[in-house]
């Protein structure tokens, strides 16, 4: 028998007996996922709210991807909870002085909002498909027809007038959605930032830092997935038609990528600036816990923070994206590096915050479970994290069966 956390915690020097790394890999995944949700939505809203016409295609895709991510976002929490079957108590007896309970409500309203926006954006498609499949034969088509009829919610009016009204509502929803998305992820940051017991977490900048890096991660993942989906579609059509010479870089799509990457760079600079502001401020004020924080930041976690997060995750992709003549291949590499960087940022906050003891005179080392020995080490180990990462793509694949991800031919 062991206590939760004992299997992956190594203690050093003076640590309280009950201290372990209780918030492990799944709590790294959790802000990562909600961040991706928020970021993907903000990207899609840039088109609707701010009329960035160049983002039209990206907008539609990132909205649906945002929803796939949204469905997967609570999963890390369920994996983390020791009593997952009681997870819904958060909605039944919410204690709103807790950031987690408030997060539950915000998350729920946000899910409703995004679902509504998708409904308005895709309504014409739902109705047309429902009508097309009304008298279709075959089980697959019958099921599809049923889904579209259910999704149309009984509203079959797709006249110009009705669609114009839809457009207005979409704009409003996207407008509301941006602050709610920021609020949603700001809350994830607040969950950490408000823990006064933890010297690394407790800063009012935490929610803002989380929002910025969330937008960065969301945009990066949307761009990456968008490029990949387009490439797969092109390969498919090429295989079918067996014509068209191989293009080095796509024409129209590359413009979209370049445009989006400008927004990405913008948010990335803000995120990194805020993180450095936090670091400088801590060093300058140097209160009681700075001694141990310094040893963690500059010595123990130096590689994770300055090499993996800021170097490989921020600096290199930044240079790659702002250098002229962006190619698809370079974009893909830069985007992957950015996602690694955002993951490392979450890691350094969650695990870094627990890598020193509340005694301020001892350390805890997180030995990440690789090969699962039991259910617990599966859930909180690498395999569990990979399960979580794959979920939004599975959901996206399922959604792509009923909603086209790219523009209709």
């Amino acid at each position, binding site marked *: 028998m062991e206590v*939760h956390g004992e299997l992956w915690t190594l203690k050093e020097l*003076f640590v309280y007996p*009950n201290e372990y790394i209780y918030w492990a890999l799944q709590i790294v995944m959790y802000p990562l996922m909600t961040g991706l949700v928020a970021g993907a939505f903000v990207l899609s809203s840039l088109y609707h709210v701010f009329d960035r016409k160049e983002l039209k295609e990206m907008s539609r895709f990132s909205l649906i991807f945002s929803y796939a991510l949204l469905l997967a976002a609570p999963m890390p929490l369920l994996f983390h909870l*020791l*009593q997952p079957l009681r997870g819904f108590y958060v909605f039944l007896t919410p*204690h709103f002085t807790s950031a987690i309970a408030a997060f539950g409500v915000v998350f729920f309203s946000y899910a409703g909002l995004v679902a509504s926006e998708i409904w308005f954006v895709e309504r014409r498609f739902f109705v047309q498909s429902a009508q097309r499949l009304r008298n279709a034969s075959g089980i697959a088509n019958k099921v599809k027809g049923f889904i579209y009829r259910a999704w149309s919610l009984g509203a079959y009016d797709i006249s110009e007038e009705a669609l114009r009204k839809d457009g207005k509502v979409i704009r409003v929803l996207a407008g509301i959605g941006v602050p709610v998305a920021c609020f949603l992820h700001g809350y994830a940051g607040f969950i950490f930032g408000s*823990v006064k017991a933890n010297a690394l977490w407790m800063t009012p900048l935490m929610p803002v830092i989380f929002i910025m890096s969330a937008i960065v991660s969301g945009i990066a993942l949307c761009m990456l997935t968008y490029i990949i989906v387009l490439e797969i579609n092109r390969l498919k059509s090429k295989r079918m038609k067996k014509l068209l010479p191989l293009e080095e870089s796509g024409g129209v799509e590359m413009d979209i990528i370049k445009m989006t990457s400008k927004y990405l760079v913008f948010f990335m600079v803000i995120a990194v600036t805020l993180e450095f502001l936090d670091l400088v401020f801590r060093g300058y004020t140097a209160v009681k816990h700075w001694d141990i924080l310094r040893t963690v930041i500059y010595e123990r976690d130096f590689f994770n923070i300055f090499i993996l997060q800021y170097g490989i995750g921020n600096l290199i992709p930044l240079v790659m994206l702002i250098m002229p003549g962006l190619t698809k291949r370079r974009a893909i590499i830069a985007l992957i590096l950015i996602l690694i960087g955002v993951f490392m940022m979450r890691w350094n906050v969650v695990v870094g915050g627990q890598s020193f003891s509340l005694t301020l005179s001892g350390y805890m080392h997180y030995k990440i479970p690789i090969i699962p020995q039991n259910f617990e080490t599966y859930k909180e180990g690498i395999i569990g994290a990979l399960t979580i990462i794959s979920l939004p793509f599975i959901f996206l694949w399922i959604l792509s069966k009923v909603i086209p991800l790219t523009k209709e031919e």
Partner: protein
Amino acid sequence: MSRRDFLKTGLMVGAGLGLSSILGKDILSSAGIITPKRWVFLVDTFKCVGCGLCVRACKLENEIPYDVPVTRTWVERYVVKKDGTVLADSPYGGRDGYLINNPQGIVVPQEDIAKAFFVPKLCNQCTNPPCVQVCPVGATYQTNDGVVLVDRKWCIGCGYCIMACPYGVRFFHPVHKVAEKCNFCYHRITKGMKPACEDACPFGARHIGDINDPAHPVADIIKTQRVSVLKDEFGTKPSVYYLGYDSLIR
């Protein structure tokens, strides 16, 4: 609805975060209607010899698996060398006592020791418990007599309370898989008994008391002598007071 009620409800529902503390939750007691018990605890570190019988008794009394290295109460050892080095440890929470002069595994010659002492720790039953504030479902709460309890049937096991406690007293119960911590042996003190750790201590280092009872000797010591609490800077207002505090105590 009166204006005050309206404000009160609005603040509760709307903001939630920390605002309820300014709403005057002590209306009843300040009006002198009732004076409920308010449990406090006094630790006399001068008297602790590091035998660990308190930790042993606590584990047996409160059904915390004996060989799992988590515990509701524990005893820390501090050995300060003449060169200023502080060696502190608490292997297995001091469950088996301290038999060898080897803090952190380092044998310290007697002539090198500037000072050395033991510090028993337990849940501080804070007046403003951060663990309760952050529980998302209301599974941990403060009773009217000031003890913080965990509802084992309602805890979802998120660990937020464990993270929020500045004293590191909370952990996951290895069997029940919910948050667990010292509750001053609530089942004993509500029957007029003393906590298991106090009964087990031969040297009188631990004492439960009622701060609202002027005749109680523990309340008297806390009110009339120089006592200290741990980590005052967090604003948690602990109910565990220490005699013989030292700034090296973590």
